[in-house]
């Protein structure tokens, strides 16, 4: 070190660096890999070399777990913690497809169009989220979007039931059955989303946050109830 400093001082600035000599007897070799601690598979498993099937299954499992959470709305933060928009997308598309019905090819397209359902769901969710943010809620944008999207699940189920009932026939009894199913599922959706979202709101303003959610699911369920295949 002393020799290196001496030569550095003698020459111009930084020129001494080239003169630093490593004595011949030290072999220039060593461990290149970065030393890491005990590697546990839970901590940093690499998803790069796993089969694609595993990746897809893991994501599907996460989506399915959230579906279960919506159907049994406990006070759980799993739906909030790791949000995704796959479930909402699937639910929204399936609901829109079912509502589309046979009116695509018929001239009289009074029924709800695919784009309309899609826009109502996403636009409505965005409006509710912005509203809750404006009222002072402590929830991130996509978390709220995720919860609202997943809570469409009961209504999608109601739509499925309605179509099955409509296959059997359309009369007063069928309408009453559909009415009961849709109202029940509407209540379910609203309660589930309220259970997830209410904690993030200031306690005195819950009613103000719940009203747009109520309106949102009410419009969707009303569309489902009035749906009749052409």
């Amino acid at each position, binding site marked *: 070190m002393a020799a290196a400093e001496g030569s550095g001082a003698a020459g111009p600035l930084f020129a001494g660096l080239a003169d630093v000599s490593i004595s011949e007897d030290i072999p220039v070799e060593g461990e290149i890999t970065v030393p890491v601690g005990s590697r546990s598979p839970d901590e940093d498993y690499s998803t790069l070399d796993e089969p694609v099937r595993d990746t897809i299954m893991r994501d599907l499992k996460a989506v399915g777990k959230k579906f279960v959470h919506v159907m049994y709305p406990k006070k759980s933060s799993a739906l909030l913690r790791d949000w995704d928009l796959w479930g909402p997308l699937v639910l929204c598309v399936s609901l829109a497809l079912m509502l589309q019905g046979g009116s695509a090819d018929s001239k009289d397209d009074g029924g709800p169009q695919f784009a*309309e359902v899609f826009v109502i769901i996403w636009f409505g969710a965005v409006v509710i989220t*912005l509203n809750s943010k*404006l*009222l*002072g809620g402590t929830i991130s944008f996509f978390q709220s979007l995720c919860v609202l999207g997943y809570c469409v699940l009961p209504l999608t189920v109601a739509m499925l039931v309605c179509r099955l009932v409509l296959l059997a026939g359309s009369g007063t009894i069928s309408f009453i059955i559909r009415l009961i199913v849709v109202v029940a599922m509407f209540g379910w959706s609203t309660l589930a989303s309220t259970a997830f979202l209410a904690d993030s709101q200031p306690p005195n303003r819950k009613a*103000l946050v719940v009203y747009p959610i109520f309106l949102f699911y*009410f*419009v969707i369920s009303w569309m489902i109830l009035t749906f009749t295949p052409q």
Partner: protein
Amino acid sequence: MSAPGAAAGGRSGTAADWGGFEDNMQGGGSAVIDMENMDDTSGSSFEDMGEMHQRMKEEEEEEAAEGEAGAAEEEDGEFLGMKGLRGQLGRQVADQMWQVGKRQASRAFSLYANIDILRPYFDVEPVQVRTRLLESMIPVKMINFPQKIAGELYGPLMLVFTLVAILLHGMKTSDTIIREGTLMGTAIGTCFGYWLGVSSFIYFLAYLCNAQITMVQMLSLLGYGLFGHCITLFVTYNIHFHSLFYIFWLGVGGLSTLRMVAVLVSRTVGHTQRLILCGTLAALHMLFLLYLHFAYHKVVEGILDTLEGPNMPPFQRVARDIPVVSNAVLNTTAKAIALTL
């Protein structure tokens, strides 16, 4: 071959002009300063534009310079000075434009990103919203003292969305077909267009008539005024009696209109101003309710025989009764105004 000669003559002529100009320029030392400023390299696209412009000028001037073969070396220097002056002028303008544009863009972005700006207008309690909804139906006859208007946007926004939902319902049940658009878009456009458009218009009128009201207060006032519309339309889209609609229209719609008119009257000075402002607002508000009802009303009678024809165009949004009723509207609004004044 004569044309190039003429061109060369022209060029020498311009060169002479340049020379004359240079003589003027030589007095001041500005050329040197400009040369110094040539090499500031702040990277803005507007400056690039300026440089491009400058380069084009340079090319033109090079052509001119070719004409005079025996130009002295120092004249080149003078040329550069000239170009520097012009370039700097353009650059200053471009720089200014760039700065203004950047400031506006950053302000818009911060508006978009910063939702906190809107938060004061959403600072309400459920009880307050309830009382305001009820108050929107109770006209207060207190003209001498300016009535209080809460600058709040939660209630109006929710009422507008409710109106959108009710309108969608009405459109669906009336089998309205809208070409080149969706029902959803039409409903949203109608409601928000009315709310924002009429608020801005009345605000403009209020400005002209010297009424003491701000834009947010106007939005809030008109938004809460839509509560009557919501009730009326919700009932009459489901129960189809014309007489019931007219009762609701005059009763509920009239009450909410009267409330807005009373508030506006209390904040305006002068009879003419009051008449203009309140007459416009009352007419617009009542006619809008009429339009919403009849445009998207379920048409039960009278449509069946017209649809018999094979090539009938689909039923468009036709307001059937409006021409007959509009006179009645004007009369009633006039009466209402006369009553309030």
